[in-house]
């Protein structure tokens, strides 16, 4: 090693000095890396919030757009409706999947299903969106439809919910199940009443993450729900919906100051929504850990 040759070549004092300065250099570089993580976060939130707040109008929240004027109410409603739909559809499928994988799945099949779920999570959202477009919008002739968007986004977030549910269930202590079985509970009753309850915060975290992703996605929605200036309608065929990310993506580059301001306001709303969801998820996790027997303990480290 280079260090070893250096040790034999130089006198002890100089060697120690060099090693000390190299040590210091390593940590300084790490500190620079940390700064490179923190600065963009601050810059993004500061920049977007600043631009959004500078020209924020209350009418953005309360009026529907008509042409190049008006607010974002259609998009706010659309985003909330689509996210709710995704939580219902993906929630049922994802939680069921997590329960099956944690409680019932035999080893081999569990591995295949888990693998499929992970691979699905790795597929770019644009590919899912395009499949939704050619499959649901064109081939099934749904046209731009709120349900196409909900289906595509659900496929996108199901892996997250499955994963968090499975992990949460696996974290429930064995003794709960053994106690339940010793009392002669049926497996389904035991799962519902004893095992699922302590796992609920974990499941909730998964749902919150799913909501954050559904709120922030653009590409799949662009291809499946189109855009609409009115409130969402719920018919299967030809029911385009507005959504907040569309306002940012479509208007940031338009030749109109008003549209720029509205795009900034939409971005501000998006960031606020996501921040709220992340904070709620954190609080839920904290509440879980307070009652959990295996909460991470702080290890006091020896001074290096």
């Amino acid at each position, binding site marked *: 090693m280079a260090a070893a040759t250096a040790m034999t070549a130089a006198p002890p004092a100089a060697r120690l000095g060099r090693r*000390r300065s190299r040590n210091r250099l390593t940590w300084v570089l790490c500190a620079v890396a940390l700064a490179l993580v923190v600065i963009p976060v601050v810059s993004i939130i500061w920049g977007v919030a600043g631009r959004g707040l500078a020209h924020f109008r209350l009418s953005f929240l309360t009026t529907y757009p008509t042409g190049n004027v008006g607010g974002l109410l259609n998009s706010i409603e659309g985003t909330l409706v689509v996210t709710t739909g995704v939580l219902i559809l993906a929630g049922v499928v994802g939680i*069921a999947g997590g329960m099956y994988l944690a*409680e019932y799945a035999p080893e081999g099949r569990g591995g295949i299903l888990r693998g499929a779920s992970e691979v699905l999570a*790795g597929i770019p959202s644009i590919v899912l969106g395009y499949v939704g477009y050619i499959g649901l919008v064109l081939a099934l002739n749904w046209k731009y439809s709120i349900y196409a968007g909900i289906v595509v986004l659900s496929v996108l977030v199901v892996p997250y919910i499955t994963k968090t549910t499975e992990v949460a269930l696996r974290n429930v202590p064995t003794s709960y199940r053994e106690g339940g079985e010793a009392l002669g509970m049926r497996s389904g009753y035991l799962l519902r009443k004893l095992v699922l309850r302590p796992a609920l915060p974990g499941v909730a975290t998964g749902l919150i993450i799913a909501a954050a992703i559904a709120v922030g996605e653009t*590409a799949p929605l662009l291809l499946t729900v189109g855009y609409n200036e009115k409130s969402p309608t719920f018919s299967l065929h030809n029911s385009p919906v507005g959504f907040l990310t569309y306002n940012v993506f479509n208007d940031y580059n338009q030749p109109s100051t008003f549209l720029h301001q509205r795009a900034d306001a939409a971005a501000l709303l998006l960031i606020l929504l996501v921040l709220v969801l*992340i904070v709620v998820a954190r609080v839920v996790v904290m509440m879980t850990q307070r009652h959990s027997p295996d909460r991470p303990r702080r290890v006091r480290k020896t001074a290096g």
Partner: protein
Amino acid sequence: MSTPWRTVAEDAGDDGDEGRGTDEGPLLSLLTKNSPSAEARPEPVEPTRAGARRGGGGGSRAGAGGGASGTGSSHPATAWWRAERLMPHGLRMLTFIPLVALLLILGVLSWKAWPAIRFNGFGFFARTPWSVGNTYAPIVTTHGVRHPPLASYGALPLIIGTLASATIAVVLAVPVAVGTALLVVEKLPPRLSSAVGFCLEVLAGIPSVVFGLWGFFTLGPFLSHHVAPLWADHLPDVPVLRFFRGPTGGGEGLFTVGVVLAIMILPIIAATTRDLLRQVPRATVEGALALGMTDSEALGAVTVPWVRSGVIGASVLGLGRALGETIAVAMVSGSLIGANVHSFYSAFNTIAAAIVNQLDGAQTDASGLAISTLAELGLVLFVVTLVANLGARLLVRRVATTALPVGRGI
């Protein structure tokens, strides 16, 4: 993270299936408590399943378990009992949905892409021009595929653009992410490292459209006016470095996209590396320190080798995400189509962004070939990201210290 409750159950010897159990005692399994995730070390599931069968089969026991309710045929509890016996089957059916979805995605894409694959041939990957053709002229047929005259598609610039931007992103993101993770685990007090964790979560959660907006208005101009000129004006005019010379543009281009993508994949790599570093056995590191090593030497000798393949796996996962990122790229890439990227700062396009950019134009093609070609692009992207993801997961599974996060890794 999984607790070893199944292992503990087995140690209690209740189903006595010695062969399938792990041979570590309860203490060791406690030590590794946070380490193996579900897929890193699939744990035996025998106790619960056996219990489920017993519970389902033994009528009287199950009835007693339901509490005071009897098992009379007219009682509502009976319906519940029946439903609960079916529950595993219902859950199993729902669990197969991701697998079915995966196959459906592949099937639909291939079905739609087939005419384009026949029309474009292998030259698709070697050609540069991109033209829908004359959509006002009558549709003609070549090789049995209907298309507008003069239609010609080449994906070479898109493939190059996708690979180049994702490579830049990974090269920039990995050192920063690893440095951050090292600092967080080794030096920062818990409160601060929790704050950094919050930053990473926010970074992972910010919608990509907001990254695009920020890249377009803030980062792009900053990079092209203040950062890139630092070297772009001074590099010599020699073959490789020539690519990094020249006018740095207005902020839309390869360099800006690379940096934006790097910031977007930071959280996956940093959070995974952090979790891996927390599992490095403390005693070994302290042993290295006791031998007189400095902190950084102990890092090089113990910590980094311990986490290396996990970090590589996480980086490949990040690469997969950078390859597939759409909206942020579409907003800051400059959306050049039909020409190759000629400088580090020039406009370009990626496969994912091209699908969004070109959709409006494709809808004007009555023969459907343009839609079909975009499906072919999607298929290419699907295969590339699939290979990246599977590679990353196999790599990490081999060392089996921790599992990779799913997707964005929030």
